[in-house]
């Protein structure tokens, strides 16, 4: 096994790993003492980073012990990404010091940080799409020989994956993988480089509870080997169950660092947002009418990018004002389903109708005209053109209407007006409507997308993972928008890997497993355990 990087890491790493050998993850059994001794892996003091118009980090204090899982908690824009970008050498701090094992360091590049043993698993993957999993994993590792033998490398990566309990096919090409699988490749890549401090940015955002459990096991294997994990997250439950200590950031400053065992989700939430947040099941003003069908998917078959059948005789109906959840582990046909409905991918069999009219197969423009709105899984590059302005993106679906263009020419003033109005109505935080969407924060990106989709007055909205990667405040906003739309009569198909979200929003829950709808149950009768088991492939009878 190459990529251990043992030679590069200083000796103290031989310290006893009592913590990670304990069966209970959040060790109350004294294992913690091992970590508290003298072993500081990362120590950052007074870190300041300014960008034009913003101070992203304003005197951040951050202290991580060796062999611990340290959660970095905060809303979008709290400065988490900037801090991790500084730690991984992407940015250089304007002020402040970074110590690694007590030695002051300053990284000139991400490569320097990686050489020092700090590896980052990004939320937005940095993978070479046409390459195989194995090729991506070994790419950029100086230990990789100039010519690589596909067989050897595949074997090597398969072993690495097995060792850290991650299921992924080394020979598959990245573009063929689901988001969840791609994330495993990112983790493998960093492990292969021999990183001792791993920074995971929102790692569970794309995972189901079962997959998240597997990730946590992987993290345990890592700490058992003496590695340190910095875990960036918005999810309180998860942070509570996985971390040893938690540092909360707000507005670019450190609010505080707490021991996980001596805090609560409620306390963390108020530290994070500066006020108390209530988590409740959303109360619907008006329940939907399942009999007044607005979206009907009948006997749909479809293929994935590899040309393999991904959808098997899928039947789903959504009624006016109804929210129907599609739960499932990533990569079980949800993306293909959303794309077939939206006309982005032709169905090989079956039909989709919106408001009683059958949509032509594989014609996105016709689907849009037919009253279908779609919030895709990949917001920045599918739902939006990230390099284009807010204004252009707001017009992406309506630029052909007489309001926005005439005789083939755009009416720029009308586009600006429309964008300004939507920005105000949906409270999008952007300097102006000419700002490229890629410069906005995650929550605002999603607001741009949602406001545009609702501006078309749709009959049906297909929303894929609409709150993935957003902060608590933004999640609340997005969920409220969905519920408001449903109350106003829009039929919503909510595809999400976040079971919590489906449980709290949907009127009816369907479960997808291996391209099939394996259950369709009223939300009132569904339990978390039952849905979880169905997602894992259990039959309805077994799950009850």
């Amino acid at each position: 096994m190459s990529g251990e990087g043992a030679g590069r890491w200083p000796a103290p790493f031989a310290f006893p790993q009592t913590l990670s050998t304990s069966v209970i993850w959040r060790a109350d059994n004294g294992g913690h003492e091992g970590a508290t001794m003298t072993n500081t892996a990362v120590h950052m003091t007074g870190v300041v980073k300014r960008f034009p118009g913003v101070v992203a980090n304003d005197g951040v204090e951050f202290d991580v012990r060796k062999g611990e899982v340290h959660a970095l908690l905060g809303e979008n824009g709290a400065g988490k990404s900037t801090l991790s970008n500084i730690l991984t050498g992407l940015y250089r701090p304007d002020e402040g010091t970074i110590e690694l094992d007590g030695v002051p360091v300053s990284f000139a590049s991400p490569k320097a940080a990686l050489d020092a043993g700090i590896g980052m698993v990004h939320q937005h993957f940095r993978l070479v799409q046409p390459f195989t999993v194995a090729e991506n994993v070994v790419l950029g590792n100086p230990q990789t020989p100039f010519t690589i033998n596909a067989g050897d490398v595949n074997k090597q990566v398969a072993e690495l994956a097995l060792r850290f309990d991650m299921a992924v096919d080394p020979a598959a090409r990245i573009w063929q993988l689901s988001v969840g699988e791609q994330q495993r490749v990112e983790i493998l890549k960093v492990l292969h480089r021999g990183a001792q401090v791993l920074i995971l940015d929102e790692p569970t955002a794309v995972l189901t509870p079962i997959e998240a459990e597997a990730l946590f096991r992987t993290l345990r294997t890592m700490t058992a080997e003496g590695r340190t994990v910095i875990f960036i997250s918005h999810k309180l439950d998860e942070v509570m169950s996985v971390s040893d200590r938690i540092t909360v950031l707000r507005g670019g400053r450190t609010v505080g660092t707490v021991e996980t065992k001596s805090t609560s989700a409620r306390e963390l939430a108020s530290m994070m947002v500066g006020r108390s947040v209530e988590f409740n099941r959303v109360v619907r003003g008006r329940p939907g009418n399942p009999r007044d069908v607005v979206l009907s998917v009948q006997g749909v078959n479809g293929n994935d990018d590899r040309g393999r059948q991904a959808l098997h005789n899928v039947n789903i109906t959504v009624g006016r004002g109804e929210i129907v959840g599609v739960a499932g582990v990533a990569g079980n046909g949800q993306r293909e389903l959303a794309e077939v409905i939206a006309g982005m991918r032709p169905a090989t069999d079956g039909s989709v109708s919106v408001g009683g009219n059958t949509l032509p197969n594989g014609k996105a423009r016709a689907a849009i005209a037919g009253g279908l709105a779609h919030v895709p899984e990949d917001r920045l590059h599918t739902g939006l053109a990230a390099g284009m302005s807010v204004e252009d993106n707001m017009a992406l679906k309506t630029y052909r209407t007489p309001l926005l263009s005439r005789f083939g020419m755009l009416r720029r003033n009308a586009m600006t007006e429309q964008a300004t109005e939507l920005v105000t109505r949906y409270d999008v935080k952007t300097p102006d409507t000419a700002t490229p969407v890629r410069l906005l924060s995650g929550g605002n990106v999603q607001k741009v997308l949602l406001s545009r989709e609702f501006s078309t007055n749709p009959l049906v909205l297909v929303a894929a993972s609409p709150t993935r990667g957003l902060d608590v405040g933004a999640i609340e906003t997005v969920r409220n928008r969905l519920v408001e739309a449903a109350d106003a009569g829009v039929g919503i198909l909510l595809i999400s890997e976040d079971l919590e979200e489906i449980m709290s929003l949907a009127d009816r829950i369907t479960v997808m497993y291996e391209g099939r709808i394996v259950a369709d149950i009223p939300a009132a009768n569904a339990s978390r355990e039952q849905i979880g088991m169905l997602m894992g492939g259990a039959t309805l009878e077994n799950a009850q």
Partner: protein
Amino acid sequence: MKSPVRLERRLHQPKQLNWAIPLVSLLGALVVGALVLLATGKNPIDVYWRMLDRGFLSERALTGTLRTATPLAFTGLCATAAFRLGVINIGGEGQLYMGAVGASLVGLQMGGTAPVGVTIVVMVLAGMLFGAMYAGFVGMLRAQFNTSEIITSLMMNYLAGILLNYLIFNSTSYWRDPRSFGFPSGKPLEKRDFWPAYDVLGISIPFGLVLAALFAFVLWVIYKRSRLGFEVEVIADSPRAARYVGIRTKWTIIAVTAMSGALAGAGGASQVGDFAHYLDAKGLQLNGFGYTGIVVAALARLNPIGALFVAVLLGGLTNAGYSLQGPDFPSGLVGTLQGLILFCAVAGEILTKYRIRSNASAVTA
């Protein structure tokens, strides 16, 4: 291995950079060029003055400059149109040849019979059609089979060159002048069908350049204000987003590539109508107009109006270079100066996206 400086990506690109950076780049080029000149025992100020004078200052110099600039404006627009979509059409060269073939065909056919203005318009259209079809094929291959347009358009440049040679040198084609003895040549157009030139303050402006200016404006409008331009921008920014909103990506690729070829084809027509007045197989292939067009587009940062000005700048540099050349001034030195100016201009481009940061204080762990 560590460099003393490194590039950091700019989060915002201030508007002033658009003019400040080219200016600084040009100054940088002149300074480096001056060192080279000093090293070879020349007076830089004297040489620069001569370049300015021969390229841009006198009426005669400007007439020559505009003449050289005309084909570059067309091929620059050709590259601009396609590059905006992310289609790297480097076949402007071949598309220009084909335009010349088409324009000379109809010019010779209609010669003397049709009214003068009609002949000229039909020549332009024929040149555009030939160029569009030649490029459209490349676009079709890209859209339908996802073949690399870089390879196919480059290969087709050679094909077009071979075709030119065949038509004039290796066959007795319609284009070849049967009266040309010894050295084969193209059949000349009727004198009254020569394209006009407009005299402004003693400077002769060829009709082709006016046409190029018109096309530059049209292209600018298309990319600034039209639905097609909007769709092109979406496709270039994110092909998946284009699929998501149902933009006909394949159709757009073919159409825009054909449009790009039409612009080069019009340049070919202008070579026939404005300057050579026959299908000049040798002359067309001499200067690599199509390839220089890529440089024009890049320097103009894919702005059609900018391409026009860059074409004039490059035209002037080229002509100044010719006039500098002499027994005491080797052509290699001329090339060096021209190369330096282009190199600095292209290198300056990166500074609009990145800024230079010192690595001096950085310590690697």
